[in-house]
C-alpha cells in the first residue's frame, strides 16, 4: 500500500466523515516505525504495546491541536517517546520496593529470546545501553539506531543540539567502558 503524505493524511483526519478511516491509515503507516522507539526503551513487548496504545490514544485526542510546525512523524515520535518514558518511570516506581532493580529486570528480559533476537555481542551491547539513564538512552537510540539528525532530535526532545551532542558523546563513552570491562 502506498504511503500517504502528511498533507493527505491530515486532510482525511480533518474531514469529519473520513476521520476514523484517516486515523486508521495513520496508525497503519507509522506504527512499524514507532514501535522500535518504545520497544528499545521498555524491552518487554507487553509494556511496549501499552505505551503504543497510550500514545495513539493521545494522538487521537490531540490531533486537532497539531499545528504543522514539524512533520507528522516528528510529532508522533515525540508523543510516543513521552509515553514510553512515562511508562518506564511508572515501572521504576512500582519496582521501588522490589528486590530486583528496574535495570536488572530489563536486562533479564533481554536474555530471553522471546524479548530479544540479537546475537551475543548484540546482547552485551544492549545491556551496556541499559546502564544509561532513560533520557540519554533515548537520545542514543535516536542517533545510533534511527540515525536521526541532531536538528530533528532537538525538535523531538526540546533540547539544544549542543546538549544532545554532549549527551550522545557521554553515552558512547559509557557504553565503550561497559563493553571493555565485560570483555
Amino acid at each position: 500500500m502506498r504511503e500517504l503524505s502528511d498533507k493527505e493524511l491530515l486532510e482525511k483526519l480533518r474531514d469529519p466523515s473520513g476521520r476514523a478511516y484517516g486515523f486508521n491509515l495513520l496508525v497503519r503507516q507509522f506504527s512499524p516505525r514507532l514501535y522500535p522507539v518504545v520497544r528499545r526503551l521498555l524491552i518487554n513487548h507487553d509494556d511496549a504495546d501499552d505505551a503504543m496504545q497510550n500514545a495513539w490514544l493521545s494522538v487521537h485526542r490531540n490531533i486537532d491541536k497539531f499545528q504543522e510546525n514539524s512533520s507528522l512523524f516528528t510529532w508522533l515520535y515525540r508523543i510516543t517517546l513521552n509515553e514510553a518514558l512515562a511508562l518506564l518511570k511508572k515501572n521504576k516506581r512500582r519496582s521501588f520496593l522490589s528486590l530486583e532493580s528496574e535495570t536488572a529486570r530489563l536486562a533479564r528480559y533481554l536474555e530471553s529470546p522471546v524479548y530479544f533476537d540479537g546475537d551475543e555481542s548484540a546482547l552485551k551491547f544492549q545491556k551496556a545501553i541499559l546502564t544509561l539513564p532513560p533520557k540519554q538512552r533515548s537520545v542514543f537510540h535516536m542517533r545510533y539506531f534511527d540515525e536521526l539528525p541532531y536538528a530533528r532530535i532537538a525538535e523531538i526532545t526540546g533540547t539544544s543540539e549542543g546538549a544532545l551532542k554532549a549527551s550522545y558523546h557521554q553515552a558512547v563513552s559509557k557504553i565503550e567502558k561497559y563493553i571493555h570491562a565485560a570483555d
Partner: protein
Amino acid sequence: MLEPDNIDDKRFSKDLDKKSADKWPVPVNYFESLPERISTRISAQKAQKHRPLGKLIWPGIAAAAVAVVLAVLLILPNDKSVGNRVTVAGQHQDTSAPDKAISAYLDKEFSADSSSYNNLADNVKPPAGRNKPAANVLAPEAQQTPISPVAVDFPEDVKITEDMLLEYFDSGLTSEDIL
C-alpha cells in the same frame, strides 16, 4: 577525539552489527491488529465518558434523601428542647413549649396589642407617696422604647405571677433575681 557524528558499530565491538542489535521479536499480525485494538479503546473511553453521569444520578439522589432525613431527625428534638425558652421583650419565640401555663399566660398578656400593657398598668397600685396615676407607670413613650430581647430560661416548675412580672419591669431586675 570522539566525533559523535561518526560512530560505527566496530567502535563498540568488532563483532557488532547494528541491525542485529536492534532485532525485537513482534507477535504475528501485531501491526495489522493494532488499529482495531486502538479503535476499541477509543470507543470504550467514549462510552466511559457518558457513563459516570448516569452512574452518579442515583447515588446523588440517595445521598440527598439521606441528608434530608438526617437533618429532620436532628432538628425535631431540638425544637422540643427549647420549648420553655422565651423572651421578656413581650414575644415568646416558641409556642410548642412544654410549660403550657407560661406560654398561655404570655400569649394572653403580651400579645402585639399594646392594650395588654395597659391592662397590666391598670392593676398596678400607685407607689406610696406618689400621686401619679398607675397608668403612667408604663407611659406610651416607654412602651415604644425598643427593648432588646433577652432569652431567659424559666424552670418548668416555677409559677409566674403578674406581680413578679410587674416587679421585673419596674425594677430592672434580672430573671435570676425574680426566680
